[in-house]
């Protein structure tokens, strides 16, 4: 059988972001996939040499547009760990609230894009319509739809008033109701099932060995979620990771779907436990010499920060490993033996975020 080489991307209708895959195809069956990155490399890690450690928060927030809050929180938590700062409980829980709102809107965005990938435009529209309510919450409470920019070293810089909390809760009820209306379609629709069930299967052992992260890992039956570590405000909340065992595209989308509902629940828990108190503690001095390694759970999976301080206001090294970076090797293992028409669905099922992969 002759091998044909088909390029996928860097510009492809299902992905707004540039990633290139060279697909070696034999009669519609993909035999091998070779990735090529580097179209949006920005060199953000290097910036820590000229921006001081406070200014780096805004840089980290811009590593990824969709989960900017969690990048900012992860960076702040790392620096706080390095400097030995304990932040107020209220700040911890406020970070959780915004983080979980970000997870919800990220997953809703992805669910819409995923529906779009197999051509279900109406579902795409519905998910994005729901997402708009969460964007409004972000905008009204933090001042911006996506890059909320509420983290500072030592706490947060925006507060939620009791009125706003009540409004968030009532909006969340509407969001949850509307999401539940789509549950049956997303999980049981015949067309969706034919496009997702049994496609791009990855077993539990494979996922673990290839270092998959987040919903890609949990979709294969591994109950691992960085929030189990209880970092920040998660120590106060009840939390069980969402797990599916099938390991195919359907399982991964179901994990994300259920995580939307779980995040809504976490926001409610955080609001009910929100104590009164300070928003931030004063931070004095520069990060000392030393290194920290911190992991958080982002919508796309586990994100790792490694920071070396050198006693000055600039950091020695800032290393960011984003979840998609970990999910590309699993993607390469999923693609062989799939049909060419399923490639967009499989690529999307890891929720690729190329800009943050390349930073």
């Amino acid at each position, binding site marked *: 059988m002759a091998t044909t080489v088909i390029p996928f991307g860097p510009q492809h209708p299902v992905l707004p972001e540039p990633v290139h895959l060279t697909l070696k195809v034999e009669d519609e069956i993909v035999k091998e996939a070779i990735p090529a990155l*580097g179209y949006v490399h920005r060199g953000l890690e290097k910036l820590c040499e000229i921006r001081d450690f406070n200014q780096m928060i805004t840089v980290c927030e811009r590593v990824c547009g969709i989960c900017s809050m969690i990048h900012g929180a992860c960076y702040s938590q790392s620096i706080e760990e390095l400097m030995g700062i304990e932040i107020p409980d209220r700040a911890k829980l406020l970070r959780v609230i915004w983080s979980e709102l970000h997870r919800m809107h990220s997953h809703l965005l992805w669910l819409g894009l995923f529906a779009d990938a197999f051509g279900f435009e109406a579902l795409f529209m519905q998910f994005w319509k729901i997402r708009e309510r969460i964007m409004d919450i972000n905008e009204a409470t933090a001042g911006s739809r996506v890059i909320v920019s509420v983290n500072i070293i030592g706490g947060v810089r925006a507060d939620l008033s009791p009125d706003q909390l009540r409004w968030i809760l009532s909006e969340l009820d509407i969001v949850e109701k509307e999401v539940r209306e789509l549950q049956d379609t997303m999980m049981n629709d015949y067309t969706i099932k034919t496009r997702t069930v049994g496609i791009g299967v990855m077993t539990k052992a494979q996922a673990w*060995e290839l*270092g998959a992260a987040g919903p890609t890992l949990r979709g294969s039956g591994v109950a691992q979620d960085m929030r189990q570590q209880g970092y920040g405000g998660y120590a106060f909340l009840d939390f069980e990771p969402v797990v599916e065992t099938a390991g195919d595209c359907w399982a991964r989308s179901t994990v994300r779907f259920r995580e939307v509902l779980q995040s809504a629940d976490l926001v409610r828990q955080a609001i009910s436990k929100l104590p009164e108190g300070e928003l931030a503690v004063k931070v004095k001095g520069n990060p000392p010499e030393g290194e920290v390694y911190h992991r958080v759970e982002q919508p796309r999976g586990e994100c790792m920060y*490694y920071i070396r301080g050198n006693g000055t206001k600039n950091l020695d090294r800032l290393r960011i*490993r984003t979840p998609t970076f970990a999910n590309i090797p699993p993607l390469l293992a999923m693609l062989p033996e799939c049909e060419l028409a399923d490639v967009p669905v499989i690529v999307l099922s890891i929720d690729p975020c190329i800009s943050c992969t390349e930073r």
Partner: protein
Amino acid sequence: MKGKVIDVTLDNVVGEVMNMKNDGQRLVSFSTYNAGEGKIGILYHFDKALENTHLRLVADMDKPIPSVSGVYFSALLVENEIRDQWDVKFDGLVLDFNRTLLLDPEVTKVPLANNLKIGPKN
């Protein structure tokens, strides 16, 4: 830093990583840092049931480092990235982009090795 740190050398890094794999650890990623003149520090981060283990390797930048991508396939991306950022060669990479994973072929200066200083904004 959270977790246990084990120092390794160029000779036993692959063996130690193999031990980690046999122990059922998951490779999270590598981190690199500048460990003095001409030296690179590499931390191999592992995770098992949320427990962290790190292997620390300090090596010369001009000598090739044995690749662990044969043990963990997922190491290939990060090893290629280190190749881009520090111009450190890896021996036995399963898929070698030869310094073009993130950078373009015509780039001659490697960004992280402190030979390149970002100037202040004008």
